[in-house]
């Protein structure tokens, strides 16, 4: 049984002003509903102004991830996002609780806590024109996989069901990579999902990326034993 936490932001009032999004609640809550429909449990559901930057930031760096994102098995974030030329991903928030963005260089998941799988339903979140290992390596403490997008991803009613399908399949113990790539890909909108997995070797990373399921029994890899990453995408 996996515990699931979601954070989603549609509204970005000052001082965190950004264009309004419309369906981040549908993608995050859809994922949660898909998982819960297969027997998994809800840990938290923070939306709009209730999604805090500190929920994502490492506790030893002044954050509170040990009570939130890093305290669940599966976390889902849906909002604006972007990876800059310094290889830092920023997830945008709708309230200034410490900061209007959470950053990949301040995220450490799985260290002393729990998070195994992170979905980032946001633009440029596993951006293949950047160095994705530089962006995310420090985040993989005991974290197993990240599911995200290269390039921009659509915010629309017509594609808003993607994460329900993903949650339903992931929760049903299907291969996590297939569940993400199949459901989040849209040739119509040119939405290109990516999966990234850590491994002790190249073969291990590929095996985990292609075969890991919620109940497949792949063990944790301490950060200092990660030697390879494998990723997969459709375009």
């Amino acid at each position: 049984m996996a515990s699931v936490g979601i954070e989603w932001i549609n509204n970005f009032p000052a001082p965190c002003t950004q264009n309004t999004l419309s369906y981040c609640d549908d993608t995050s809550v859809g994922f949660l509903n898909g998982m819960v429909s297969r027997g998994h449990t809800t840990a938290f559901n923070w939306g709009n102004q209730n999604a805090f930057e500190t929920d994502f930031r490492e506790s030893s760096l002044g954050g509170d991830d040990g009570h939130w994102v890093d305290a669940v098995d599966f976390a889902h974030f849906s909002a604006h996002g972007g990876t800059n030329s310094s290889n830092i991903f920023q997830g945008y928030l709708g309230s200034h609780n410490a900061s209007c963005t959470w950053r990949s260089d301040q995220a450490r998941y799985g260290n002393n806590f729990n998070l195994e799988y992170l979905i980032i339903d946001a633009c440029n979140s596993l951006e293949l024109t950047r160095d994705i290992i530089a962006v995310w390596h420090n985040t993989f403490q005991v974290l197993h996989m990240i599911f995200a997008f290269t390039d921009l991803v659509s915010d629309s009613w017509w594609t808003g069901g993607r994460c329900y399908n993903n949650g339903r399949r992931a929760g049903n113990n299907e291969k996590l990579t297939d569940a993400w790539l199949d459901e989040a890909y849209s040739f119509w909108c040119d939405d290109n999902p990516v999966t990234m997995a850590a491994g002790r070797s190249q073969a291990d990373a590929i095996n985990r990326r292609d075969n890991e399921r919620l109940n497949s029994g792949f063990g944790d890899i301490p950060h200092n034993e990660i030697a390879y990453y494998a990723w997969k995408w459709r375009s």
Partner: protein
Amino acid sequence: MTIRYAKELPNQVPASLAVYRLAPPQSTMTQAAAMSQRFGLSGKMREFTISDDWTGYQEGRIRISVHRNSGALRYINIDKYGMEREKEFRLSEQESEQISRDFLGRTRMYSDKLMRLHKITYLRSGSSDLEGKEKTEKLIDAGVIYRRFVDETPVEGPGGYTMVNIDPEGEVVGFRSIWRQTLRREAKVKIIPVGQVVEAFEKLVSNVEGDLTVTAANFGYFEQGELDRQLYLEPAYVFIYTVQNGEVAHKSIEVIAAGQRVFAKLQGKKRFDPGKQEERKPA
């Protein structure tokens, strides 16, 4: 805000188009088993999985699933689909297209006249050590996508397509389609002119901040996605656009009914209730 049209609507659209009533999905166990025979299976096994939204049938290593709302269909080889193997995918586009057409021909589901090759996508694999010294990239499969046409008019939207997945050995290891069958012509509708629709689109996005670029502007029948029930196939204009606002970008879509008479909404309510958010105080 500025609007730039990287793609524009076609100059010419038909003066009128038929609206079709769609057939209900064929998603019972009996129908799923019968469907499997189109894929060369016996349809006689008794291994079904029923959930609130899908009916699944498995025979050997092949699983077929039919969505209860849309009739969307999936076929996968559960051992081979999406798996990276030693051998890289190296078939040419022509070979991939031929294999996919042969496969679809055997299923006798979609007439050649009603579908056109849209694009060939690839499932891609990358791996690297931490320093990037041993970086690899390879192709795992080809996903050959065909779009649906009705009365020579393309079908737009998240539906109205089929994709055939081919592995490096040239075997079809996956297939999916959203292709609701038409039942009858319901009516004929006059089409709203392009100029009027562009005006409506620009009004819809007038509150967006930043530089807006229209990356796709299409006219066609509109078919909904997998999760949604749809009773009518009717014409629509579609705009897909990106917005760059400072360092933050996003992508969105507007779908505007093209018929002067509209039979059903092209956009429904949100699918999932987020629940009430009580105000949260920082710790």
